[in-house]
């Protein structure tokens, strides 16, 4: 084959046209083999260089090699173009409607009951003050629930408690459902020497049912016993607790003398609040007082019942409704709904499982 400039031009434009016309990788490979393969048209031209004179080669060499390079480039460019087109087509084909909803994560759906959450909040606060959490049984004896707590047999104060009794087993004294968490005071004193600093959350029971009373409810008891704990310390503990719990920088509290068989002196505590907005209570402001807890110095007879000498040890105790402070803080209007397990209520008033109350992260945030 005689290579001249005219032939080369014809071949080049034919090859470039074939490359441009290649619609897929197969076609372009065929063009490549036809041009650059062992017996390809360009390869054949290159073979002719060997037989040429030096002068001829000086002219034809660059011309043929130039052709080869241009064809090679064109092949690569077309290949890339085709690959991009294929990717683009695939992406179009794979396109979905991203507005379609995904399933909610289980952790988003699950809920912790407000009572559990508030108990965790309480544990966070009192843990910081050096208290431990104590517990005791729901089914109690008369001794632990009343007698040891200085409720004399037949005393009208027992009647204030509207006690649930269990049917007596053969030959046994009838047990009862504890009416307060205070029996755990005695149970703790029996096994632990002072200093004692505990809070006792738990279920309690009284025969009562309306919007603010249910036959089962939850109480938080607190007990501090050492050689010096006094009313002034009690004020500090309770005021610090209420501020931390209601998450306000300051809070006025009113301590009023009152009566409980198991404390002497006894006090009831009101907290300052603002109830002027319907359906909402704000703490730390306003002119209303709301009763929130009862407290006092542990009665000498109770210390004795727990095996302690009231002239050596002294201390204070308090009790408050967990459900009640939960209602006050989070605004549930009806206590009965706490125990109904209505998923709409749980979803609304419940807490997300990973919202764990800590002091460093804020209790409710």
């Amino acid at each position: 084959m005689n290579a001249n400039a005219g032939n080369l031009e014809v071949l080049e434009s034919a090859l470039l046209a074939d490359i441009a016309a290649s619609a897929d990788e197969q076609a372009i490979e065929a063009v490549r083999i036809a041009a650059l393969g062992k017996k390809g048209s360009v390869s054949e031209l290159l073979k002719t260089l060997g037989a040429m004179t030096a002068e001829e080669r000086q002219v034809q060499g660059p011309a043929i090699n130039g052709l080869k390079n241009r064809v090679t480039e064109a092949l690569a460019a077309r290949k890339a173009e085709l690959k991009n087109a294929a990717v683009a087509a695939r992406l179009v084909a794979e396109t979905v409607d991203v507005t379609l909803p995904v399933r909610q994560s289980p952790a988003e759906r699950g809920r912790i009951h407000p009572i559990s959450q508030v108990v965790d909040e309480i544990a966070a606060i009192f843990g910081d003050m050096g208290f431990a959490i104590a517990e005791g049984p729901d089914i109690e004896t008369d001794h632990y629930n009343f007698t040891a707590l200085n409720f004399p047999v037949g005393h009208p104060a027992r009647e204030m408690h509207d006690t649930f009794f269990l049917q007596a087993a053969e030959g046994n004294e009838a047990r009862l459902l504890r009416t307060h968490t205070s029996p755990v005071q005695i149970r703790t004193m029996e096994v632990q020497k002072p200093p004692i600093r505990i809070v006792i959350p738990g279920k309690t029971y009284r025969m009562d049912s309306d919007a603010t009373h249910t036959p089962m409810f939850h109480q938080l008891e607190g007990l501090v016993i050492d050689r010096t704990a006094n009313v002034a310390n009690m004020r500090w503990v309770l005021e610090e607790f209420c501020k931390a719990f209601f998450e306000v920088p300051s809070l006025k509290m009113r301590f009023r003398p009152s009566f409980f068989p198991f404390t002497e002196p006894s006090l009831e505590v009101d907290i300052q609040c603002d109830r002027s907005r319907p359906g909402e209570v704000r703490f730390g402001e306003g002119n209303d007082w709301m009763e929130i807890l009862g407290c006092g110095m542990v009665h000498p007879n109770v210390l004795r019942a727990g095996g302690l000498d009231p002239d050596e040890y002294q201390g204070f105790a308090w009790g408050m409704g967990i459900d009640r402070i939960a209602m006050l803080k989070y605004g549930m209007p009806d206590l009965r709904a706490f125990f109904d397990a209505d998923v709409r209520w749980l979803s609304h008033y419940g807490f997300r499982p990973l919202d764990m109350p800590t002091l460093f992260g804020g209790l409710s945030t």
Partner: protein
Amino acid sequence: MKFTLSWLKDHLETDATLDEIVERLTSIGLEVEAVDDKAALKPFVIAKVLTAAKHPDADKLQVLSVDIGSGAPVQVVCGAPNARAGLIGAFAAPGTYVPGIDVTLSVGKIRGVESHGMMCSERELELSDEHNGIIDLPQDAPVGTSFAAYAHLDDPVIEINLTPNHPEATGVYGIARDLAASGLGKLKTAPVEPVAGKGATPVKVRIEAPDLCRVFALRLVRNVKNGPSPKWLQQRLMAIGLRPINALVDMTNYITFDRGRPLHVFDAAKVAGDLVVRRGKEGESVLALDGRTYAVTSDMCVIADDNGVESIAGVMGGEHSGCDENTKDVLIEAAVWEPLTVARTGRTLGIITDARYRNERGIDPVFNSPGIELATRMVMDLCGGEPAEVEVSGETGFTPKVVSFPVSEVKRLTGIEVPKAESLDILTRLGFVVKGDGDVVEVAVPSWRPDVDGKADLVEEVMRIHGVDEIRQQPLSSHGVVNGKILTTLQIRTRAAKRALAVRGMMEAVTWSFIPAKHAELFGGGQKHLKLANPIAAEMSDMRPSLLPGLVAAAQRNADRGFSDVALFEVSGTYEGDTPETQRRVAAGVRRGTAKLDGSGRHWAGNAQGVGVFDAKADALAVLEACGAPVDRLQIETGAPSWYHPGRSGVIKLGPKVVLGHFGEFHPTALEVLDASGPLCGFEVFVDAIPEPKAKPTCTKPKLELSAFQAVKRDFAFVVDKTVEAGTLTRAALAADKKLITGVSVFDVFEGAALGAGKKSIAIEISIQPVEKTLTDEDFEALAKRVVENVAKQTGGVLRT
């Protein structure tokens, strides 16, 4: 306890305002529950009818022109028959709320004539039931001034919520003494002068139950004239919510509230023979003053005459011997009863009276005689008559309790520094008698404070009068170290179980500890000693042996409300017995409908299927894992309790004995008893049965060894008998080479005719981690052979080809 401000001022000389008094009462422990300052009556003014003309369009109405003391007369349409020119009455202008008809007045037209207000009847002002005409005042009533002030109706009423330890404050006098002791005025202490009697009281008293009656005083007053009591007395009684009856009865009520000294009056003509104070006898009954008949028992104290029981001691008098307007000779009784008996009697009979309220708190025994003298004086003032001498039976003396009081106790218990002199002065003002001047003084407790027993009680007296507000807060001594863990293992696990289940999309319920008897019995409970003697409702009768009945019922309630896909859990107590040791801590949950872990209901990417045994199993294992149970050592077996579906349930065990939980779908019979429908599955995990974690000497985790060789997977499928459990097969595969095989998972289970009757295929994927070298084909073959052989040995399974 209710009283009015003017009544208080009968006993307390004070310039304090109502607000000051109210605040002080609360701060000294007499919590003010309500104050009615009678503001509702303030708008009513005294007005005079100038003219009265017939209404043009109504026979029974008149058109009045009324002088209200300011500006021009106003026109009022009035239907009262006694409305007439010259009448002076009580007028309400438009805008006034009239309590008796519960209406706020506006200018209205009555049969075409405008009416600019209203002349009121006593009933409209809630003063009495009188409604035959409008209020008709004397001619000297000052027109234009406040009607309430004129009629002494503006006396504020204070109600205090009395704690059981203040019997002295059941009388206005005792309240005045407390206020005076707190520095808010001076107590008026006029002694009660005895009234000389003529001759002995002819009716004698015999106390046959001295343990129930400490002292009994009786006095006859002859020739009284009983009738309505005077207006001032009626007004005071009405102000505190009592209905005036007649002078004798009103007198007893007045002294009850004035002095906390309940009294009873008998019509002497109706008393047969002498009076006996004794226990009631079975079969006896008495028609009481409330018109009801009460059966008395030997636990109660009664006053009887020859006719039988005349009065329930300390609680309520009898109708038969009661006083009415025909009473001529009256017997006045003042007695001190045993408080607990009064309380029990009142409770048993369901009688709440002002007498019981005081008698069960304890009556001042020293005031018994002055009480009857005061009553005599009042009877004579109101009804005339001639008193006989007082007949007293029982114990007349009184020995006060004496408490040794180290004055330093005030500081020790309260943290406040009250000067010794002030502490003792407070006690003295409250009626305590202090002897000695050392660090420890002897304090005699007054007869009206039976609740005061020891030094802590005296501290309370000093504290409440000195002022609780004086006590400044004082931090507890700091513990000086960073706080350690404060929760017990059980508390930590309870908390972890809750969070773990909530993370699985379940909602935490808190259900009642008591459930219906048939539910309790179904779950192995219902024993007599776990049944409530006094349940609040029939379906809340038995302590729950399991959390599941309450949760299933809760799921069903939600379904009935239209929410059928619910996942609920609870971590709480169940009661196997009535001792502290038999109260268990259990985590339990139920899933209903399609409430799967990934979501419920229909979804474009695939609908959720009905829940089943494996959803419950996954929940149970998640709880165990969260609680730190050794999950890799647990055994899953069949044989769950009877409330589960026997073929779709399991038991989770640790070793042969320790049962950590159950899971599964429910037995159809159980669902029938629970009145619930499925799909439904549930689980119970006994959190308290999980062994305590071993104490570790270090927090360092074991060294991590990472193999440099590629991990590989190989699949095997075995044909086994249908009864072979997958767990046995995977354990066998795992055991084939404990060093190289790091995991076995089941990826397919199927049954088909091709496998033969009673057979199934289980396909497993084995994860292999070479540790020393890359495995050769020969190594893999040898390993596969060991797997097949071990599976065959343990299960009889053959490799599927």
